[in-house]
């Protein structure tokens, strides 16, 4: 029998935190996903971040390190878990709920001092108390979003409405899907009438898995990718796929091509949130919190949302958005109403038990060729 596992369970941080040198080293290093922060092409900078630097005199560096949760986590995990942990050169990273759950449980992140982050109270109520981090003591939502279908209207030549439309013969080999099984399989389960947020069974999961397996084998799916699916869409290797909502709008502005479109499939879409956290190795905790706090200023949040088009978790941002772009302030993709979510049958993916997680991840990994 295996010996008892190392530190796990309970969110109480038992580990000693590294000394904070924020006051002497005015930097904060932020790892985030691609197309997840407002970007100015002309100057090749991130306007809100520039403003932050100016305002606080903290030099923030932003790296689009994260391709998907698993690959980024596995890349840094050995260092974080090493005894003693090794600095990963990042002060903030951003993980989706389920991965945030793991990171918090394994005590790989530092607690937040909410008292230093007054704006944090602007967090949407629905997000305030999450199962993996009760009371938001270790994480703060960055953005939420949906997974659905994205495609290039002109190149596809018709509207895509359902997953079945993606598997059409003329799109064979031109479709990408997400390497996050909670999104890709979530959509397939919805298509099959299974609620991913409900207590679905292993068999139901596997049915969905089989569908993707078949689509890969048959060559409908060209590649299963993390956030870099955007490159395939840009280079023309793919013209449709299962994607994240905001990305397609970023793609629109980047390529100046309004034919890119995002739709929630008829059978429904998935909803998720990504969370900012401070890795256990960070020695710039305060600077990180300053940054988080800054982005919870509704005006700043609106500015970000106007670019990334993801669901904004900040109360008051919608009002700020009115000032920037009326249309966007109405957009359900940024400010969805409960009704809209319901109507479109949008569901979260339920938390998996550790054994389920291990089992499903392994099966998924095999199907996508890992």
């Amino acid at each position, binding site marked *: 029998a295996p010996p008892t*596992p190392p530190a796990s369970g309970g969110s109480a941080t038992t580990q000693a935190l590294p000394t904070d040198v924020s006051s002497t080293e005015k930097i904060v290093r932020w790892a985030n996903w691609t197309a997840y922060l407002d970007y100015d092409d002309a100057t090749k900078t991130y306007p809100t971040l520039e403003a932050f630097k100016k305002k606080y005199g903290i030099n923030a560096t932003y790296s689009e390190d994260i391709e998907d949760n698993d690959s980024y986590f596995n*890349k840094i995990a050995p260092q974080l878990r090493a005894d003693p942990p090794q600095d990963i050169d990042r002060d903030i990273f951003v993980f989706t709920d389920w991965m945030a759950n793991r990171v918090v449980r394994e005590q790989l992140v530092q607690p937040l001092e909410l008292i230093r982050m007054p704006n944090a109270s602007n967090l949407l109520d629905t997000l305030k108390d999450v199962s993996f981090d009760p009371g938001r003591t270790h994480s703060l939502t960055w953005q939420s979003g949906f997974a659905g279908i994205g495609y290039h209207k002109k190149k596809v030549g018709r509207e895509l409405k359902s997953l079945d439309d993606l598997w059409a013969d003329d799109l064979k080999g031109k479709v990408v899907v997400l390497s996050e099984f909670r999104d890709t399989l979530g959509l397939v389960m919805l298509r099959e009438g299974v609620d991913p947020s409900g207590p679905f069974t292993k068999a139901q999961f596997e049915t969905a898995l089989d569908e993707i397996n078949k689509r890969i084998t048959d060559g409908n*799916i060209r590649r299963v990718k993390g956030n870099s699916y955007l490159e395939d869409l840009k*280079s*023309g*290797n793919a013209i449709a796929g299962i994607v994240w909502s905001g990305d397609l709008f970023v793609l629109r502005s980047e390529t100046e091509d309004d034919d890119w479109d995002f739709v929630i499939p008829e059978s429904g879409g998935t909803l998720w949130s990504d969370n900012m956290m401070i890795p256990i190795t960070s020695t710039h905790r305060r600077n990180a919190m300053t940054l988080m706090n800054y982005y919870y200023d509704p005006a700043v949040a609106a500015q970000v949302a106007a670019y990334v088009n993801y669901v904004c978790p900040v109360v008051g941002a919608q009002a700020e958005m009115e000032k920037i772009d009326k249309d966007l302030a109405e957009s359900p993709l940024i400010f969805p109403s409960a009704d809209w979510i319901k109507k479109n049958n949008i569901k979260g993916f339920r938390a998996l038990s550790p054994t389920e997680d*291990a089992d499903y991840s392994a099966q998924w990994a095999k199907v996508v060729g*890992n």
Partner: protein
Amino acid sequence: MTALAHTGSTAPAGDPPKRKRSWAAYLLLLPATIWLIVFFVVPLIQLFTVSLQSGYPGNPGYYYRDLNFGNYLTAFTQYWPHFVRSLLFAGLATFFAFVLAYPLAYAMAFKAGRWRNVMLICVIAPFFTSFILRTIAWRQILADGGPVMATFHSLHLTWMLPDGRITETWIAVVAGLTYNFLPFMVLPIYASLERADPRVIEAGGDLYANGFTTFRTVTLPMSMPGVLAGTLLTFIPAAGDYVNADLLGSDRSTKMVGNVIESQFFKVPGGFPTAAALSFTLMALILLLVFFYVRKFGTEDLV
């Protein structure tokens, strides 16, 4: 690496007797051997112990010491197609690299005259444009919307391609491997051809062998040490490569062992032991192949 081509040469008659036997020898060899022991042998041993570790169920990413040979079983049973593919792709790439490298090496050695060194630079210089950059360039050049595919379309030749495309097929992967390891094939072959006496090749023609026969019966056998070194230097890294399959291949049908190792390390939680077992198996397999290959071609002293 050109030096690898010296492999086949037995010591010349005038080989100086190994004279000195002294503490100086140990002083000279210690730093490098210590380095290799600490940063090559010890890590390999560590890798081996990792390959026998087990993971805590429910705590992916945490492992404990064990004698879990099941990891090797997994490596074999689950990933044998990847091994087959690795060897196959590496073999194909080695073959194509050989086919492309030989004329180039030959021309450099015998036809280039004063252009010889310029050609040599041309072979090496692309190293300095990072190979990742060049591979990504290929990805764009071969992309569905790229110039190569456009040519195929305009000539109505897409039927020749699997799935009507190049990227995300085995063709792209093999092409990428071929391209990236070509210099490693060219240089040793060039080195061994350069040493060959051109008169010996002329003697082939003089003795009624036409161009091709001379090549087959004289030039090629004479350059065998270089070919041997070149094929090893191409095959080994190609068999362990994952970048080409990653950037140019698709998810399942073109993945090689390298990709599995990489994803077991970096993408799949709890994959360390499997990855280690796969690495070890790959190394053992390649060492075995190298051993038989070298035995067959009679080159014992490779270094």
